[in-house]
């Protein structure tokens, strides 16, 4: 049979980032796959080496807008690892709290997009609606929806105020309730099972051989989780389970992520409990960084984030290496895409169906907005109101 080539990208309909895939197909079966990346290359490592340690933390936040606290945690841990610095106990709980909130929002984001990719737009709208609640919690804690700017070398930059905690718990209750509903949907829905079971299987051996991390490997039965294996921050003092599944197909990845959301919410509850008891400083003063090398890692929503920093005693890193989890997870496509049909390959690659067919509503708007408060003003007022209500000033 003749081989055909399907080029995909770099601008697909829908998929956020630009990547180029080339599928080799025989009939409808994918026999080979090639990828080209580099469309997003901005040279972070080089820029970071021109900046000082404090600036680097804000820079690594902008590696990825979704993991925008995982990279800073890994980065500050790498700097702290050079001198084996300890951070205050309250800061430990705040770090874990912010990290877990981010995990919930990232998994919900993926869940919604995955639902959209298989034509299940209800899941998309639901998941993203509840995700807004998480972003609001973030706004209460850090003052921003994304790019929180919480991490510092030696602790965290902002404290969680005790009077915010009841509101945070209320919002968490709501998320828990909805997540149990979504977990039930994932367990019971015959359509989801029929569509996703046995699609894009990554076997246990392949997951080990490709060094995959995060939910990608845990769905294949490799129980690696940095939070448990290399306990740092508050994770050594918290009680949580590492979720694994056995089959390694798309359905198992979905189940692992949904169950991880529930685990994260368990961790957040414990953190908030402790934060209302534990008192003390949140930031140790770090005068200088001695020469040496340090490795910091953190279990981001997608897997292990790895930062390596070498210092020569000055205020700048001489080498800063960053490895994001997707970097090791993307090459597993080679294993999981071979031998499946083209339509399944698109889900496995999570690039997809451009159907946005729910625009039935339209509204006439005029340009006489001078008389009404404009939206930006309303947004500022909203932030002010949230601040007032939750901080009481």
């Amino acid at each position: 049979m003749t081989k055909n080539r399907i080029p995909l990208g770099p601008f697909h309909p829908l998929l956020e980032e630009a990547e180029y895939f080339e599928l080799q197909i025989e009939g409808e079966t994918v026999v080979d796959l090639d990828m080209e990346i580099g469309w997003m290359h901005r040279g972070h490592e080089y820029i970071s080496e021109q900046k000082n340690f404090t600036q680097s933390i804000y820079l690594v936040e902008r590696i990825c807008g979704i993991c925008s606290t995982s990279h800073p945690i890994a980065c500050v841990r790498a700097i702290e690892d050079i001198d084996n610095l300890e951070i205050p106990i309250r800061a430990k709980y705040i770090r874990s709290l912010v990290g877990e909130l981010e995990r919930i929002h990232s998994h919900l984001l993926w869940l919604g997009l995955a639902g959209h990719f298989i034509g299940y737009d209800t899941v998309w709208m639901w998941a993203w609606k509840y995700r807004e609640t998480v972003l609001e919690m973030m706004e209460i804690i850090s003052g921003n929806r994304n790019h929180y700017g919480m991490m510092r070398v030696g602790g965290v930059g902002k404290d969680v105020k005790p009077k915010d905690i009841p509101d945070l718990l209320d919002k968490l209750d709501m998320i828990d309730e909805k997540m149990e509903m979504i977990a039930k949907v994932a367990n019971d829905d015959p359509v989801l099972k029929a569509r996703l079971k046995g699609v894009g299987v990554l076997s246990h051996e392949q997951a080990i051989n490709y060094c995959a991390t995060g939910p990608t490997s845990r769905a294949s039965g490799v129980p690696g989780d940095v939070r448990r294996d290399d306990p740092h921050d508050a994770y050594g003092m918290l009680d949580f389970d590492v979720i694994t599944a056995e089959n390694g197909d798309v359905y198992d990845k979905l189940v692992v992520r949904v169950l991880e959301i529930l685990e994260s919410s368990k961790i957040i509850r414990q953190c908030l409990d402790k934060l209302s008891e534990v008192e003390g400083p949140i930031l140790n003063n770090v005068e200088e960084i001695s020469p040496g090398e340090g490795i910091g890692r953190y279990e981001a929503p997608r897997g292990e984030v790895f930062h390596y920093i070498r210092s020569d005693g000055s205020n700048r890193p001489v080498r800063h290496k960053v490895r994001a989890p997707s970097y090791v997870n993307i090459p597993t496509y080679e294993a999981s895409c071979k031998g499946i049909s083209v339509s399944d390959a698109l889900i496995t690659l999570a690039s997809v169906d451009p159907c946005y067919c729910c625009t039935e509503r339209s509204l006439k708007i005029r340009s006489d907005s001078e008389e009404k408060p404009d939206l930006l003003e309303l947004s500022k007022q909203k932030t002010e109101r949230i601040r007032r209500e939750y901080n009481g000033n």
Partner: protein
Amino acid sequence: MSKVDEFRDKFKDVISQEIEKKGRYYFNITNENLRTIARYLFEEMGCRLSTATGTEMEDHLQIIYHFSHDKTGQYFCPRVVIKDKDNPQVDSIVPIVMGAKWIERELFDFWGIKFKDHPDMRRLLALNHPAKLDKPMRYKEEQYDQE
């Protein structure tokens, strides 16, 4: 007996310049022993290759491989020093660890390090780059600068 001691006993002839910290173990090896050590770490001990870092020093290039022993949270970091900066060449570990494929392609892209027996030695991030780079990316920033 900890994993590090066990490892050190087995390979005490080939490793040098050890640095041991809490949970981190750096040591120097030569290119000839790279594959033996990678095979032992990956297959016998069940480590996972996190990544490899290339660094340019004044008179040499070095690659640090970061093997993570997930059961104990211990990092094993063998460091390979390459004296020949103009034509750097190292043995590839892709035949042992499949996950090293992109990691080694990136090192080739950034530092120009060639990996022997690598199945697919192309650039990674600067593949088909319009600037028609003929040198490793990090050596000369000027070649990118159009201004």
